[in-house]
Protein backbone atom coordinates (compact mmCIF):
# COMPACT_ATOMS: atom_id res chain seq x y z
CA UNK A 1 0.00 0.00 0.00
CA UNK A 2 0.97 3.63 -0.16
CA UNK A 3 3.28 4.38 2.72
CA UNK A 4 1.38 7.45 3.83
CA UNK A 5 -2.15 7.19 5.19
CA UNK A 6 -4.55 9.25 3.08
CA UNK A 7 -6.14 11.53 5.66
CA UNK A 8 -4.98 14.59 7.56
CA UNK A 9 -1.60 14.88 5.93
CA UNK A 10 0.60 17.88 6.56
CA UNK A 11 0.14 20.88 8.81
CA UNK A 12 -0.25 20.97 12.56
CA UNK A 13 2.09 19.74 15.27
CA UNK A 14 2.26 16.02 16.03
CA UNK A 15 -0.05 14.81 18.78
CA UNK A 16 1.58 14.18 22.16
CA UNK A 17 2.18 10.41 22.30
CA UNK A 18 0.01 9.78 25.34
CA UNK A 19 -2.97 11.74 24.04
CA UNK A 20 -2.58 10.05 20.67
CA UNK A 21 -2.50 6.59 22.24
CA UNK A 22 -5.48 7.27 24.47
CA UNK A 23 -7.57 8.62 21.65
CA UNK A 24 -6.58 5.74 19.40
CA UNK A 25 -7.55 3.23 22.09
CA UNK A 26 -10.95 4.88 22.49
CA UNK A 27 -11.77 3.68 18.94
CA UNK A 28 -10.73 0.07 19.55
CA UNK A 29 -14.18 -1.51 19.82
CA UNK A 30 -15.32 0.35 16.73
CA UNK A 31 -12.26 -0.70 14.76
CA UNK A 32 -12.59 -4.31 15.89
CA UNK A 33 -16.24 -4.49 14.83
CA UNK A 34 -15.30 -2.96 11.50
CA UNK A 35 -12.54 -5.52 11.10
CA UNK A 36 -14.97 -8.32 11.93
CA UNK A 37 -17.35 -7.16 9.24
CA UNK A 38 -14.57 -6.79 6.69
CA UNK A 39 -12.75 -10.06 7.36
CA UNK A 40 -15.73 -12.09 8.65
CA UNK A 41 -13.24 -13.94 10.83
CA UNK A 42 -12.33 -13.14 14.47
CA UNK A 43 -8.67 -14.16 14.18
CA UNK A 44 -8.15 -12.16 11.02
CA UNK A 45 -10.02 -9.26 12.57
CA UNK A 46 -7.64 -9.23 15.54
CA UNK A 47 -4.63 -9.35 13.22
CA UNK A 48 -6.03 -6.56 11.09
CA UNK A 49 -6.71 -4.33 14.08
CA UNK A 50 -3.29 -4.96 15.57
CA UNK A 51 -1.58 -4.16 12.26
CA UNK A 52 -3.72 -1.04 11.95
CA UNK A 53 -2.55 0.26 15.33
CA UNK A 54 1.07 -0.56 14.61
CA UNK A 55 0.83 1.38 11.37
CA UNK A 56 -1.05 4.23 13.03
CA UNK A 57 1.70 4.51 15.63
CA UNK A 58 4.34 4.58 12.93
CA UNK A 59 2.53 7.34 11.06
CA UNK A 60 1.19 9.29 14.01
CA UNK A 61 3.09 12.36 12.78
CA UNK A 62 0.67 12.48 9.84
CA UNK A 63 -2.37 12.63 12.10
CA UNK A 64 -3.54 16.15 12.81
CA UNK A 65 -4.89 16.47 16.38
CA UNK A 66 -8.49 17.61 16.48
CA UNK A 67 -9.36 16.03 13.12
CA UNK A 68 -11.33 12.83 12.67
CA UNK A 69 -9.12 10.09 14.15
CA UNK A 70 -11.75 7.41 13.64
CA UNK A 71 -11.79 8.17 9.91
CA UNK A 72 -7.99 8.21 9.84
CA UNK A 73 -7.78 4.81 11.56
CA UNK A 74 -10.46 3.36 9.31
CA UNK A 75 -8.56 4.54 6.24
CA UNK A 76 -5.44 2.75 7.46
CA UNK A 77 -7.38 -0.40 8.32
CA UNK A 78 -9.28 -0.44 5.08
CA UNK A 79 -6.10 -0.10 3.01
CA UNK A 80 -4.44 -2.88 5.01
CA UNK A 81 -7.50 -5.06 4.53
CA UNK A 82 -7.37 -4.73 0.77
CA UNK A 83 -3.63 -5.33 0.69
CA UNK A 84 -3.52 -8.29 3.09
CA UNK A 85 -6.73 -10.12 2.46
CA UNK A 86 -7.81 -9.14 -1.00
CA UNK A 87 -4.44 -9.01 -2.70
CA UNK A 88 -4.79 -5.71 -4.46
CA UNK A 89 -6.32 -2.33 -4.85
CA UNK A 90 -10.11 -2.28 -4.79
CA UNK A 91 -10.09 0.36 -7.49
CA UNK A 92 -9.11 -2.37 -9.92
CA UNK A 93 -12.23 -4.38 -9.23
CA UNK A 94 -15.50 -4.04 -11.02
CA UNK A 95 -18.72 -4.73 -9.25
CA UNK A 96 -21.30 -7.09 -10.58
CA UNK A 97 -24.13 -4.71 -11.02
CA UNK A 98 -27.55 -6.11 -10.43
CA UNK A 99 -29.29 -3.01 -11.62
CA UNK A 100 -32.85 -4.10 -10.97
CA UNK A 101 -34.44 -1.90 -8.34
CA UNK A 102 -35.46 -3.47 -5.08
CA UNK A 103 -37.19 -1.75 -2.17
CA UNK A 104 -37.87 -3.84 0.92
CA UNK A 105 -40.54 -1.40 2.02
CA UNK A 106 -42.56 -1.94 -1.17
CA UNK A 107 -42.20 -5.70 -1.02
CA UNK A 108 -43.33 -5.88 2.57
CA UNK A 109 -46.20 -3.52 1.91
CA UNK A 110 -47.36 -5.72 -0.95
CA UNK A 111 -46.78 -9.10 0.61
CA UNK A 112 -46.81 -8.99 4.38
CA UNK A 113 -49.81 -9.44 6.62
CA UNK A 114 -48.03 -7.55 9.40
CA UNK A 115 -46.90 -3.89 9.44
CA UNK A 116 -43.53 -2.94 7.99
CA UNK A 117 -41.91 -1.94 11.26
CA UNK A 118 -42.90 -5.23 12.88
CA UNK A 119 -41.19 -7.09 10.07
CA UNK A 120 -37.95 -5.32 10.98
CA UNK A 121 -38.51 -6.14 14.66
CA UNK A 122 -38.82 -9.82 13.84
CA UNK A 123 -35.56 -10.06 11.94
CA UNK A 124 -32.86 -11.59 14.12
CA UNK A 125 -29.73 -9.53 14.77
CA UNK A 126 -27.52 -12.29 13.38
CA UNK A 127 -29.52 -12.26 10.13
CA UNK A 128 -28.91 -8.55 9.73
CA UNK A 129 -25.18 -9.02 10.38
CA UNK A 130 -25.10 -11.91 7.91
CA UNK A 131 -26.84 -9.77 5.31
CA UNK A 132 -24.19 -7.08 5.74
CA UNK A 133 -21.40 -9.65 5.55
CA UNK A 134 -22.85 -11.16 2.38
CA UNK A 135 -22.33 -7.87 0.55
CA UNK A 136 -19.32 -7.69 -1.77
CA UNK A 137 -16.46 -5.95 0.10
CA UNK A 138 -16.74 -2.70 -1.85
CA UNK A 139 -20.38 -2.46 -0.87
CA UNK A 140 -19.87 -3.77 2.64
CA UNK A 141 -17.29 -1.13 3.52
CA UNK A 142 -19.53 1.77 2.48
CA UNK A 143 -22.46 0.42 4.54
CA UNK A 144 -20.05 -0.02 7.43
CA UNK A 145 -18.85 3.57 7.21
CA UNK A 146 -22.13 5.37 6.55
CA UNK A 147 -24.80 3.23 8.20
CA UNK A 148 -22.90 1.67 11.09
CA UNK A 149 -20.30 4.33 11.88
CA UNK A 150 -22.35 7.34 10.82
CA UNK A 151 -19.71 8.85 8.53
CA UNK A 152 -20.80 11.67 6.23
CA UNK A 153 -20.54 10.92 2.51
CA UNK A 154 -17.57 13.30 2.42
CA UNK A 155 -15.67 11.50 5.20
CA UNK A 156 -16.53 8.11 3.72
CA UNK A 157 -15.23 9.32 0.35
CA UNK A 158 -11.94 10.33 1.97
CA UNK A 159 -11.56 7.01 3.76
CA UNK A 160 -12.29 5.09 0.58
CA UNK A 161 -10.35 7.41 -1.71
CA UNK A 162 -13.23 7.82 -4.15
CA UNK A 163 -15.48 10.74 -5.20
CA UNK A 164 -18.64 11.42 -3.18
CA UNK A 165 -20.76 10.36 -6.16
CA UNK A 166 -19.16 6.92 -6.01
CA UNK A 167 -19.97 6.65 -2.30
CA UNK A 168 -23.60 7.50 -3.08
CA UNK A 169 -23.95 5.03 -5.93
CA UNK A 170 -22.23 2.21 -4.03
CA UNK A 171 -24.34 2.90 -0.99
CA UNK A 172 -27.53 2.84 -3.00
CA UNK A 173 -26.66 -0.48 -4.62
CA UNK A 174 -25.41 -1.90 -1.33
CA UNK A 175 -28.66 -1.07 0.39
CA UNK A 176 -30.67 -2.65 -2.38
CA UNK A 177 -28.63 -5.84 -2.06
CA UNK A 178 -28.92 -5.76 1.71
CA UNK A 179 -32.68 -5.33 1.52
CA UNK A 180 -32.96 -8.16 -0.98
CA UNK A 181 -31.10 -10.48 1.40
CA UNK A 182 -33.21 -9.38 4.37
CA UNK A 183 -36.31 -9.99 2.30
CA UNK A 184 -35.10 -13.52 1.56
CA UNK A 185 -34.54 -14.13 5.28
CA UNK A 186 -38.00 -12.75 6.05
CA UNK A 187 -39.49 -15.04 3.43
CA UNK A 188 -37.62 -18.11 4.71
CA UNK A 189 -38.69 -17.49 8.27
CA UNK A 190 -42.29 -16.83 7.25
CA UNK A 191 -42.28 -13.20 8.41
CA UNK A 192 -43.53 -12.02 5.01
CA UNK A 193 -45.55 -13.75 2.35
CA UNK A 194 -48.44 -14.38 4.71
CA UNK A 195 -50.95 -11.90 3.34
CA UNK A 196 -52.44 -14.28 0.78
CA UNK A 197 -52.74 -17.07 3.31
CA UNK A 198 -54.25 -14.76 5.90
CA UNK A 199 -56.82 -13.57 3.37
CA UNK A 200 -57.77 -17.02 2.15
Amino acid at each position, binding site marked *: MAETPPLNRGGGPPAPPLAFAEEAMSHLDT*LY*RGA*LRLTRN*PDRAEDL*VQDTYVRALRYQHSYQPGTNMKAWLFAIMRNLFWDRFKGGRPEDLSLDDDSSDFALYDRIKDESAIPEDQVLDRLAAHEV*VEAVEKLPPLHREVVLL*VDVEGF*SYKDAAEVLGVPIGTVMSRLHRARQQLQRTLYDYALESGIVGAKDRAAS
Partner: protein
Amino acid sequence: MNCQECVDRLERFVDRELSTSEVEEIKQHLDDCPPCAERYQFETSLKRLVKVCCEQETAPPVLREKLRQILF
Protein backbone atom coordinates in the same frame (compact mmCIF):
# COMPACT_ATOMS: atom_id res chain seq x y z
CA MET B 1 -42.40 18.42 -4.17
CA ASN B 2 -44.23 15.32 -5.37
CA CYS B 3 -43.90 11.78 -4.02
CA GLN B 4 -41.39 10.65 -6.63
CA GLU B 5 -39.14 13.61 -5.92
CA CYS B 6 -39.42 12.83 -2.22
CA VAL B 7 -38.56 9.14 -2.67
CA ASP B 8 -35.60 10.09 -4.88
CA ARG B 9 -34.16 12.24 -2.09
CA LEU B 10 -35.16 10.05 0.84
CA GLU B 11 -31.87 8.17 1.10
CA ARG B 12 -29.89 11.40 1.36
CA PHE B 13 -32.46 12.80 3.77
CA VAL B 14 -32.12 9.78 6.06
CA ASP B 15 -28.33 10.15 5.82
CA ARG B 16 -28.59 13.89 6.65
CA GLU B 17 -26.88 14.82 3.43
CA LEU B 18 -29.38 17.33 1.99
CA SER B 19 -29.07 21.09 2.03
CA THR B 20 -31.15 23.08 4.50
CA SER B 21 -33.62 24.15 1.81
CA GLU B 22 -34.02 20.58 0.54
CA VAL B 23 -34.57 19.36 4.10
CA GLU B 24 -37.34 21.92 4.57
CA GLU B 25 -38.99 20.85 1.31
CA ILE B 26 -38.92 17.17 2.28
CA LYS B 27 -40.18 17.84 5.80
CA GLN B 28 -43.06 19.81 4.36
CA HIS B 29 -43.91 16.96 2.01
CA LEU B 30 -43.67 14.36 4.79
CA ASP B 31 -46.00 16.43 6.95
CA ASP B 32 -48.56 16.44 4.15
CA CYS B 33 -48.11 12.89 2.83
CA PRO B 34 -48.67 9.95 5.23
CA PRO B 35 -47.52 7.27 2.74
CA CYS B 36 -44.15 9.01 2.22
CA ALA B 37 -43.88 9.63 5.97
CA GLU B 38 -44.41 5.91 6.56
CA ARG B 39 -41.72 5.05 4.02
CA TYR B 40 -39.38 7.51 5.70
CA GLN B 41 -40.01 5.89 9.10
CA PHE B 42 -39.24 2.49 7.64
CA GLU B 43 -35.99 3.60 6.00
CA THR B 44 -34.89 5.26 9.24
CA SER B 45 -35.74 2.13 11.26
CA LEU B 46 -33.84 -0.06 8.81
CA LYS B 47 -30.74 2.11 8.99
CA ARG B 48 -30.92 2.06 12.80
CA LEU B 49 -31.40 -1.73 12.79
CA VAL B 50 -28.25 -2.25 10.72
CA LYS B 51 -26.29 -0.01 13.06
CA VAL B 52 -27.55 -1.64 16.26
CA CYS B 53 -27.02 -5.19 15.00
CA CYS B 54 -23.48 -4.44 13.83
CA GLU B 55 -22.48 -2.81 17.12
CA GLN B 56 -22.83 -5.79 19.42
CA GLU B 57 -19.26 -7.02 19.74
CA THR B 58 -16.41 -5.57 21.76
CA ALA B 59 -12.70 -6.11 21.25
CA PRO B 60 -11.31 -9.17 23.08
CA PRO B 61 -9.45 -8.26 26.31
CA VAL B 62 -6.31 -10.00 25.04
CA LEU B 63 -6.22 -7.76 21.99
CA ARG B 64 -6.83 -4.68 24.12
CA GLU B 65 -3.92 -5.60 26.38
CA LYS B 66 -1.64 -6.31 23.43
CA LEU B 67 -2.40 -2.90 21.96
CA ARG B 68 -1.86 -1.18 25.30
CA GLN B 69 1.63 -2.65 25.36
CA ILE B 70 2.26 -1.45 21.82
CA LEU B 71 0.86 2.04 22.29
CA PHE B 72 1.83 3.05 25.83
